[in-house]
């Protein structure tokens, strides 16, 4: 009892083959889209590599791989469907078609995995950004050390572009020394006092870099002595909201990447649905063409289905095949081999007959 059987006349089969040919070419285009989406995501991640402790390479690489494979598979599918109109040309592809369909079925599974990975990347990313930003802020002052000399610039550009400050908020800058010792007058009593008041001898201030300054503030930016109300006229830091950027950069970057990932994930899901429908069409075409060959008359009606028997029967059949695959090197019913098996027990139950002795 076939699963979802549909009867196809000759014209139906031809139309199905033509439509599938066009759809396969459309799928090649969607494969290119997948590839470019993966490339775009990779570029976005590499751009901010310095702010991440561990680069997330799995998702963009998966998308790139899936995109390229989709192009190849659908290109082949297009060729097959083009040849399916003619039963003689179909014979060329007859043996290849079932493996092709099985491969494509597993491949669409990969596309789905790719889409789901897009949505699950968030936690890894958050962890990576937290550690990366913490290190970047720590190395902000090291503009004279090779390998770290551009971190100040990167951090400033990030804070200006995303209008954010620090890791969670602007107070993160109070816990690290972001002014290099080269620019501190160690003979000054104020500086010496600050260094002494700190266990590790770090110069900590309640100030932030200029890139934290908010663009929407009506007054010129207050970056130093932020928590000291008396240091500035008409200023209360508890009420002040527009002076500095309030968002943390981790939050800002996470939102930026989540938005990209969600859009990409949605597009990949739509492409997955499209691929599944193309695969279903190809399966129907394959079964219809095989039945036509079985019937012998190329112009007759034939049936197409998804599975020849019900799902349970097909599963059992395949399971048996897989079970018996393992037994191909074991001995079976060859009578010439002496196998100690249940036949010995049968012998014991058989009454032993005495051989008559001649007298």
């Amino acid at each position: 009892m076939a699963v979802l059987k549909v009867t196809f006349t000759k014209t139906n089969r031809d139309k199905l083959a033509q439509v599938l040919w066009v759809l396969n070419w459309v799928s090649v285009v969607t494969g290119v889209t997948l590839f470019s989406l993966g490339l775009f995501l990779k570029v976005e991640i590499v751009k901010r590599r310095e702010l991440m402790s561990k680069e997330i390479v799995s998702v963009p690489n998966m998308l790139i791989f899936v995109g390229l494979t989709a192009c190849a598979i659908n290109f082949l599918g297009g060729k097959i469907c083009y040849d399916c109109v003619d039963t003689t040309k179909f014979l060329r592809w007859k043996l290849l078609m079932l493996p092709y369909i099985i491969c494509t079925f597993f491949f669409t599974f990969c596309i789905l995995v790719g889409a789901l990975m897009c949505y699950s990347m968030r936690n890894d990313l958050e962890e990576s950004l937290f550690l990366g930003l913490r290190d970047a802020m720590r190395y902000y002052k090291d503009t004279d050390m090779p390998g770290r000399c551009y971190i100040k610039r990167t951090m400033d550009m990030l804070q200006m572009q995303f209008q954010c400050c620090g890791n969670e908020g602007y107070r993160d800058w109070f816990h690290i020394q972001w002014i290099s010792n080269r620019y501190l007058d160690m003979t000054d009593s104020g500086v010496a006092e600050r260094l002494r008041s700190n266990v590790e001898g770090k110069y900590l201030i309640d100030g932030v870099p200029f890139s934290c300054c908010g663009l929407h503030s009506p007054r010129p930016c207050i970056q130093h002595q932020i928590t000291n109300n008396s240091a500035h006229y008409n200023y209360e830091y508890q009420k002040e909201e527009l002076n500095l950027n309030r968002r943390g950069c981790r939050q800002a970057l996470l939102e930026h990447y989540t938005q990209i990932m969600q859009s990409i994930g949605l597009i990949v899901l739509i492409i997955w649905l499209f691929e599944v429908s193309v695969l279903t069409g190809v399966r129907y075409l394959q079964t219809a063409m095989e039945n036509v060959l079985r019937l012998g008359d190329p112009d007759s009606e034939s049936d197409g289905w998804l599975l020849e028997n019900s799902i349970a029967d097909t599963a059992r059949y395949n399971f048996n095949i897989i079970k018996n695959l393992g037994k191909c090197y074991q001995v079976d019913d060859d009578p010439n081999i002496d196998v100690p098996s249940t036949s010995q027990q049968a012998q014991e139950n058989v009454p032993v007959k005495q051989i008559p002795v001649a007298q």
Partner: protein
Amino acid sequence: MVLLKIKFPFQKRVRLAQGLWLLSWVAMFSGAITFAMGVFLKTELHRRSEVMHSMDIHIVPNLLMAVGLASVGINICAGKVCQDSLDPTRFPRWKMFLPPFFCFSVFLTSLLLVAMILSFALQPSLEESLKIGLKNGIRFYKDTDTPGRCFQKETIDRLQIEFQCCGNTNYRDWFEVQWISSRYLDFTSKEVKDRVRSNVDGRYLLDGVPFSCCNPASPRPCIQYSLLDNSAHYNYEYQSEELNLYNRGCRQALVSYYMGLMNTIGPCVLFDFLLQMTILVSLRYLQTAMEGVIGQENVEIETEGYILEKGVKETLLETKEKMKKLLQFARVGDASAVTPDTEPEADKPATA
């Protein structure tokens, strides 16, 4: 004496018509691209309109948009004429339409050249407009509580950050303007009173700049205040300091940006102009060659094509005479409507 005569056998005419039809499609796209470039330039100019005083420079993108649109229409007509020229029965209906069409098209296409010339000629005007606009922007930087000026601070800050510039000519422009509002100045403090008194207009001037002038590429944290005082900061010499603030003035930055845009658009516009003129010249040849065929029984004869039937001077004189006659006819027509019994009507001017 005919201008630039060429002989056209039948095959050459057919090939000319076909090639011209194809070229008119290419020119249509080129016209659409010119329109798109005009739109892009206009949007970019509009985005910074708050720091521009006059809108003179907008004539360049306006011309590009108008000519781009018109050339799409012109090329559609040219394509249709080419299609009809291969059929001698359908070609005569274009006879009355083509001469004014040519004059109009040549005029419009020359506007492209005018736009290109203007883009260079208006550079001083753009610079002046930016100078005044930026000066006002810097002056009103502190007026975040005055309606109509409350966004100047944000505009100038964004501009300085995006274009990596500071002030009008350079950062010293900020020293001459009070950019900190009096609302945030403690007038009981001695320092503030000294500064305000030392100034004729009673303004609070200081050797400091807003935070948006800070250069992120500087190795040290930004120094915005007491810029000219070497002793106010450790290990600091303002004369040798180059990376602390942006060195470029915003006027120069914006002018370079817009000139860069127009220099990129320039070659595309020139290409469009040359393409359009080629089409118009070829269409003129096709028209004059086909005119030799009209009325003849054998359509495959060889005919001559030219640009002007007579020389340039003679054609101009003829056109002047024609215009005079047309004007006279119109005037006499008016007069005869008022006094119908007086002069007899002048002869109808012979049309081309």
